[in-house]
């Protein structure tokens, strides 16, 4: 009997090929969409974490409240001491210091007169020490376009786009002008050792990377840091652990002193945009599955109904010959199981194939995201990310919806009187 059903399936394209195509297309779209959204969300979260948020970050409460202004006068003063505490209490994280500030770049001509000027976002981070993990974290070696990474104090990296705009060449000096932590204006010459492409329009527009020590000297911050960022060793954000850490740190600090500049810890989800993306990322699988399941069930139900109508003659003959209604119904379900399994397998394979292409090669969208803000680091090249979920996110709904579709359509066989089926022969 199984062979009889399979023969029917293989020979009748409207029974096999069309539903198989519908399932395969639906499943492949689900798999691809899930991998795509996981990739893009992951990239945005990762890039934002690496450049500005960290997985957790420690900063003073007033700084946190005005972080969008980069208020360096509200920075942590005894940052090294605090780092020691953090390393001791939370050794599973890599702790790094960051100082972000706004400045003006003045590029002189051969006579020392201003040739070009432009506002810059400057990030002070550890570029020179032996234990630095920042170069690897921000992929600076790979991002280098011209010149080399800074090797000495006073050397900086400019974004390639910014350097071109300022018409400054590798090895040339320029003056950085900014307000110090005491409110004075500081004017210091720096040498551009190289240019980099961040792959993030917000940073590529006009950013400078400066060694942490040089930044401290420039701004008069001594041992200070605007923020201390913590990163999980595996590079991924773990919400439960981060929240646990945040609560333990903040509880510990609470009541220890009444210093309003007492540092607090924030985690990635404290940034509302990041919280939204992380929330979307975690619930997306469920929503994609649900929408797919409903849509495909409806589509396959209709396909099944149409197929069922077309097959009333066959059902009538089979019933007349002595097949039971329940047997006809079960055979419909077996057919749909075979179609669903094959369609879901093919769909998953196709979805994974295209997701792999997008993961490997990426899609450059820099032209569309030139005006992106720095609160969320939108990557210039979007990539899919294949996760274990992708192997079943389309497969299971594909199979279930096929069965539901056939099950609903097959009810028609039950509801129709046998004699009526016969009369329609």
């Amino acid at each position, binding site marked *: *009997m199984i062979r*009889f059903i399979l*023969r*029917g399936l293989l*020979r*009748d394209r409207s029974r096999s090929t069309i539903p198989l195509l519908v399932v395969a297309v639906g499943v492949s779209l689900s798999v691809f969409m899930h991998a795509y959204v996981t990739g893009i969300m992951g990239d945005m979260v990762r890039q934002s974490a690496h450049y500005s948020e960290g997985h957790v970050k420690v900063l003073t409460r007033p700084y946190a409240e005005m972080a969008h202004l980069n208020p360096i006068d509200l920075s942590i003063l005894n940052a090294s001491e605090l780092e020691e505490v953090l390393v001791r209490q939370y050794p599973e994280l890599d702790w790094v210091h960051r100082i972000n500030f706004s400045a003006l770049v003045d590029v002189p001509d051969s006579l020392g007169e201003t040739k070009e000027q432009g506002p810059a976002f400057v990030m002070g981070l550890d570029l020179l020490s032996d234990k630095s993990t920042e170069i690897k974290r921000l992929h600076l070696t790979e991002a280098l376009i011209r010149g080399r990474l800074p090797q000495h104090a006073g050397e900086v990296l400019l974004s390639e786009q910014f350097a071109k705009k300022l018409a400054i060449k590798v090895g040339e000096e320029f003056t950085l002008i900014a307000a110090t932590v005491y409110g004075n204006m500081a004017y210091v010459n720096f040498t551009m050792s190289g240019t980099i492409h961040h792959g993030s329009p917000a940073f590529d527009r006009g950013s400078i990377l400066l060694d942490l020590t040089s930044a401290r000297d420039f701004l008069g911050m001594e041992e200070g840091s605007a923020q201390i960022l913590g990163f999980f060793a595996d590079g991924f954000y773990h919400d439960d652990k981060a929240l646990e850490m945040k609560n333990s740190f903040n509880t510990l600090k609470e009541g220890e002193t009444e210093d309003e500049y007492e540092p607090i810890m924030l985690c990635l989800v404290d940034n509302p945009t990041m919280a939204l993306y992380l929330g979307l990322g975690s619930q997306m699988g469920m929503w994609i599955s649900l929408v797919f399941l409903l849509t495909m069930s409806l589509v396959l139900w209709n396909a099944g109904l149409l197929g069922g109508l077309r097959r009333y*003659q*066959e059902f*009538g*003959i*089979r*019933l*007349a*010959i*002595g*097949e*039971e*209604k329940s047997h006809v119904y079960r055979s419909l379900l077996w057919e749909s199981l075979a179609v669903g399994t094959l369609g879901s397998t093919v769909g998953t394979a196709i979805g994974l194939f295209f997701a792999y292409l997008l993961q490997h090669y990426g899609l450059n969208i820099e032209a569309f995201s030139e005006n992106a803000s720095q609160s969320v680091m939108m990557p210039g090249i979007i990539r899919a990310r294949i996760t274990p979920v992708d192997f079943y996110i389309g497969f299971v709904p594909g199979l279930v919806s096929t069965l539901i579709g056939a099950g609903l359509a097959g009810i028609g066989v039950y509801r129709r*009187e*046998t*004699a009526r089926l*016969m*009369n329609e*022969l």
Partner: protein
Amino acid sequence: MPETIIQVDNLIKQFPVGKGFFTALDNICLRIESGEFAGLIGPSGSGKTTLLNILGSLDSPSSGEALVLNKSIGKLGAKEAADLRKEAIGFIFQTYNLLPVHTVYENVEFPLLLLKRTKKERNLQVEEALEWVGLQSKRNSRPNELSGGESQRVAIARAMVKRPKLVLADEPTANLDAKNSFHVLDTMKELNERLGVTFLFATHDDKVIQYLRRIIELNDGQIARDYTPEKNIQS
């Protein structure tokens, strides 16, 4: 003494129409013995197909009794009715109704699959049935590759392959030309004589009527005449 295959007493079949009922069969009494080659004849709407459906356990009477092989059709559940059709009744339809995606061999084999016969048994019985209807050479053909006459002969083979006690044939020659009609009727007559299978036709085709050994004439849902023709091809 011949076995009673069909016994119908005071059978009434009504269908709801609007707020009332349409009586398709009105107080039918009938007895058919094993080995008969009988036909229900009458104009369209006289109740031939309705009676055939009830005797084939595809429908049930509104009142009265219809016994087929000693089973009361009105009291059969869906499974028992299906079992009766599967084991003891063969159907032949006006439009052949072969399964279009299956070959001649597979169409004839299908009733045996339902009976869970072994592959060896199936093979023997299908080949035998194809031999009866002279279609061994077409075993791998699909229905759309057959002529009308060939298709109906496949349908006969499918109905006969399980050696049923009763074959119900609803207008089996309506779609056939004269030559093919006679060929098909000759085949059925031969099987009736050779295997002793009871045939009951519903027809108003004169060609079929020529072959019948008993004619039950229906009119407005009632038996108008039940007689043995003086001359027929068999006699």
